């Protein structure tokens, strides 16, 4: 008999959900919007975190050698550096010619620049070794070791100082986005709870006369209350589905802009990779919001 009653209250909640028309629409919209904003700010925060992490990993130190240093000497240094496997991930040799082609390519093959270089008569660029660290934190150590090394007199320039500033800036941005993301998320969740609670309260308010009738014909409190709990859960579930679809749309549009910006691929890959976590988390949040709002709201009108 209890199962029968539970099934009936569920059916009734479902029917309320369908028959309420625009109130259902309004509640689901608000709830979806809240969930959407919360999950989007979470996803974007995660994306920026990942992009920054990726950028840090892409950063390298390049050591330029004086023009009188021979290629053989540079290869020897490269070999020596390669032995520090714990700290150094790779050492790549960029010859003067390669550096020039790269420079021209980076300046967009501007003919005036090519012309200017031709007029100088010789390649103004130096050969260099591009060093990547295993961990970004190791760069200061690597740089200081190179500066103390036997070949320190062959070095023209280490472009670490410039990179150091970028590192520091990245760190700052990273920390700031983390904090603002967290603060914004918290604010949105709070607003979402308030709005959802009020919308569901309005829905229940529109039913308040019916509570009296239900109790008069002998419905127990729990029997009157359960359909609204189920209704709240349904609002949550449908809102989660809407949110998931909206997020897919957003991911579809953002994806091209984030191509290759992070190790995980683009925004869409991130969305798909974390789909089940996202779905689970949202369901938990959405259904809890719906059920708790209903439970609180109905208490107000169910004075027995």
């Amino acid at each position, binding site marked *: 008999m209890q199962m029968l009653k539970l099934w009936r209250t569920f059916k009734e909640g479902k029917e309320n959900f369908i028959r309420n028309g625009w109130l259902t629409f309004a509640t689901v919209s608000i709830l979806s919007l809240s969930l959407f904003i919360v999950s989007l700010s979470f996803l974007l925060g995660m994306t920026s975190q990942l992009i920054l992490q990726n950028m840090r990993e892409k950063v390298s130190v390049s050591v330029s050698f004086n023009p009188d240093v021979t290629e053989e000497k540079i290869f020897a240094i490269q070999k020596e550096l390669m032995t520090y496997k714990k700290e150094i991930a790779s050492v790549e040799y960029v010859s003067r010619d390669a550096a020039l082609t790269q420079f021209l390519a980076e300046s967009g093959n501007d003919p005036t620049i090519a012309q200017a270089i031709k007029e100088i008569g010789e390649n103004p660029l130096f050969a260099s070794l591009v060093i990547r660290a295993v961990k970004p934190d190791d760069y200061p150590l690597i740089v200081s070791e190179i500066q103390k090394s036997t070949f320190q007199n062959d070095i023209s320039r280490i472009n670490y100082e410039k990179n150091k500033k970028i590192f520091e800036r990245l760190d700052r941005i990273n920390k700031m986005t983390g904090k603002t993301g967290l603060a914004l998320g918290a604010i949105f969740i709070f607003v979402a709870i308030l709005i959802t609670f009020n919308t569901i309260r309005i829905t229940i308010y529109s039913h308040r006369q019916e509570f009296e009738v239900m109790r*008069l014909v002998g419905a127990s409190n729990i029997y009157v209350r359960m359909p609204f709990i189920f209704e709240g859960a349904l609002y949550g579930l449908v809102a989660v589905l809407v949110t998931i679809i909206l997020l897919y749309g957003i991911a579809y549009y953002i994806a091209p802009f984030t191509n290759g910006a992070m190790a995980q691929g683009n925004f869409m890959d991130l969305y798909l990779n974390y789909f089940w976590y996202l779905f689970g988390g949202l369901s938990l949040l959405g259904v809890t919001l719906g059920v708790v709002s209903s439970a609180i709201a109905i208490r107000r009108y169910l004075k027995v």
Partner: protein
Amino acid sequence: MPDVQPIIRFENVVKTFPGNITVLDNINIVFQPGEFVSLVGASGAGKSTLLKLIYAEEVPTQGEVYFSERPVGKINRKHLPFFRRNIGTVFQDYKLLPQRTAFENVAYALEVDGRSTAEINEEVPEILEIVGLGDKMHKFPKQLSGGEQQRVSLARALIHRPKVIIADEPTGNLDPVSADEIIQLLLEINSFGTTVLLATHNKGIVDKIGKRVVLLSKGQVIHDQNKGKYILS
């Protein structure tokens, strides 16, 4: 019927509302099983409050109301819904659930009791047939006339086979013909042994019924007559 246990008994009942408004003033009255009682009096005489005390929508300020010699005021709030299944109620405004059909409105009273779907599908059409709505079961309240809505409400009140039917101004919103039909139904229900308490201020109806009449005025019983007529106070 002096040796029969009364179905409802009021013992020194006083009901006051906030602001020191006395609605019922020392009421002592007994209703026997199977009686048909018309409660009459002007608006504000205390008819509705007296009825509400019976189905425990209100609690007496002083005194006690007994239902089958059980003090209504002492029923645990948790058990109220079960107690109310002993009493069928009909109101001026029908109190139907607007988003349910006639069938569903009546079925609801059985659903809350945990009755099986098979039982519901058998009993609901039967009772709707009795009140003459067999062909309008699947209409929503707004698709029915006032008289028809009141008959749905009456069917719902009857579905639990209650010992008592409480009808508070059931004809207040109805045209004379529909009103007459409702009263005829109440009389018919009464003839099967159900106690009927009818509150009304329609003189014509009371005079036609020709059964016990209780006249309330300013919260007091000032007339109680078997086979009475509506006496203007």
